[in-house]
């Protein structure tokens, strides 16, 4: 597990709510960053730790849902809080990947559980990304020929079949295959397949 201390961010245009959230996070000793607008949050340079975002749907300027669209690439899990239970809005938010949609007033337990779920999800995401980044780094070391061999190995072809496809000898394929397994640090073919899936190689899609 990641040992980095997680942080919770909250964006609400209501000063009183910001103060209340900050007090609540302080009471449980949670690191928090509180902002009054989406723009302010975007300008902030976030530390590279597991995080969750508590977001008011209705914000002046950039709205909560618009911010979510912009943040989708970064993958920070979002918990929405709103003053009015607008069903279409909550559906849209959940579809876009929100962890939870809370209607004010809500109990701290519900919020904190949602936050811990969000942080857990972020941790997993981060771990996943770290693995993907690692795989990507290893994959980048492969030569063009090795990449082709990897593709066919993952597809389940035998060395002989691969040699026929690439128009080379079975021996050469064996050497390339050995190089792939070493550079990718894969102990077995199934492990190599998992890595290939993580890399989401376009050539593997059917």
């Amino acid at each position, binding site marked *: 597990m990641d040992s980095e201390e997680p942080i919770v961010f909250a964006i609400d245009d*209501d000063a*009183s*709510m910001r*103060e*209340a*959230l900050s*007090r*609540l996070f*302080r*009471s*449980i000793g949670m690191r928090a960053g509180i902002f009054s607008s989406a723009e302010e949050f975007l300008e902030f340079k976030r530390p590279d730790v597991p995080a969750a975002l508590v977001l008011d749907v*209705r914000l002046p300027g950039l*709205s909560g849902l618009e911010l979510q669209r912009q943040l989708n690439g970064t993958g920070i899990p979002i918990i929405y*809080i709103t*003053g*009015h239970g*607008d069903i279409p809005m909550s559906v849209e938010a959940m579809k876009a990947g929100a962890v939870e949609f809370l*209607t*004010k*007033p*809500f*109990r*701290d*337990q519900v*919020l904190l559980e949602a936050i811990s779920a969000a942080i857990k999800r972020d941790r997993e995401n981060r771990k996943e990304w770290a693995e993907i980044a690692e795989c990507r780094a290893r994959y980048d070391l492969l030569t063009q020929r090795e990449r082709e061999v990897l593709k066919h190995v993952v597809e389940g072809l035998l060395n002989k079949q691969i040699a026929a496809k690439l128009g080379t000898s079975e021996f050469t394929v064996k050497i390339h295959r050995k190089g792939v397994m070493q550079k990718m640090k894969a102990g077995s073919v199934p492990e190599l397949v998992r890595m290939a899936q993580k890399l989401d190689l376009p050539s593997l899609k059917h």
Partner: protein
Amino acid sequence: MLYFTSSGKPVWGQVFSSYFIAVVAVWLAVLVTLCLGSALKDKVTLFFCAVMVSSWYGGLWPGLLTAFLSWLALDYYFIAPFYSLDVNTQELPDMLAFIGTALFISWLNSDQRKVKSSLRQARDELDAKVRERTADLVRANLQVQSEIAERRAAEEGLLQAQNELARIARITTMGELAASIAHELNQPLGSIVVNGDACLRWLAGVSPNLEEARQAVEAIIRDGTRASDVLVRTRKLVRSGKGTRERLDINSVVQEVIAWSNDKLERSGVSLRLKLQDDPPPVTVDRVQLQQVILNLVMNAIEAMLEVSESSRVLWIHTEKQVLDDLLVQVADSGPGIDPKHSSRIFEPFYTTKANGIGMGLTISRSIIEAHGGRLWVAKTQHGSTFCFTLPIDRKLGRG
């Protein structure tokens, strides 16, 4: 002369009595003149009196009768030869003079009497006419008074009906704003619950942090007051009370209305552009009524814009001081505009282009603005629709 009643019939009793008086007067004159004898030098005097009395009382004919009888009596009793109707030629001029004078007196008296009686008649007629006219006037006056009372009652009824309609319109608008009110209330309630929970956490444990807990409770109290303010505002907008006018900054009223409609604006995807007059001169208005007018215009604008694509929905609100002593408020939208065939009728009562409208919004708005001494109209624009109204600037203690 004859006596007539107002119906034209002679009064025989009076006619008789006037001739009777003539005879009696002559008889009395004879008697007194006889009794006085030589003590009375001029025997004619009392007979003149008799003529005067009877002609005065009975008119020309009784007067003439008296003159004739007097002449006979004088001739018989007092002119030689006595106790005979023969006339001494020596006495003839005197007798003729008496007759002439008596006739003249008779005529003069009766004429005088006639004038007097016609005067009296004229005065009576005039009196009657005056009485009649006065009665007419009193009647007319009563009628006018009852008409005034009727009209006043009708006006009062109208005002009441108008107030009631205005209240219904407000409640209708409030219905549309229910979500906004819920949001306004949930905002402080949300803070209260979070603060309450945080407070419990600070109090729990071995060494509670009382300072943090105290601050949380203070925030709770503040938010409780805030929630109550929302309710007070809502109640003010719905209640039907008599309007009280106060000196206000028009921009503050606009801002309040925006606070109410923010939620609806956002949900309808309308972007708001404000251009408010810096430091506007004050206006003396009924805050609730003015809020209602602006709210109504804003709601109409939002509804109108639902017909156009979301990206082009813009609401403009301008406040501006005019060269004249007026403050102009404009509410414009980027909707499809008002169909010319409706534009002349939109201020009519119960005229509506909405499926579920009651058609009173603009009617009530206009009557509110006019009651404040301003005007409300729809401006001619190429795109969308623009509603304008003016309010007179309060110059009593005005700043500019």
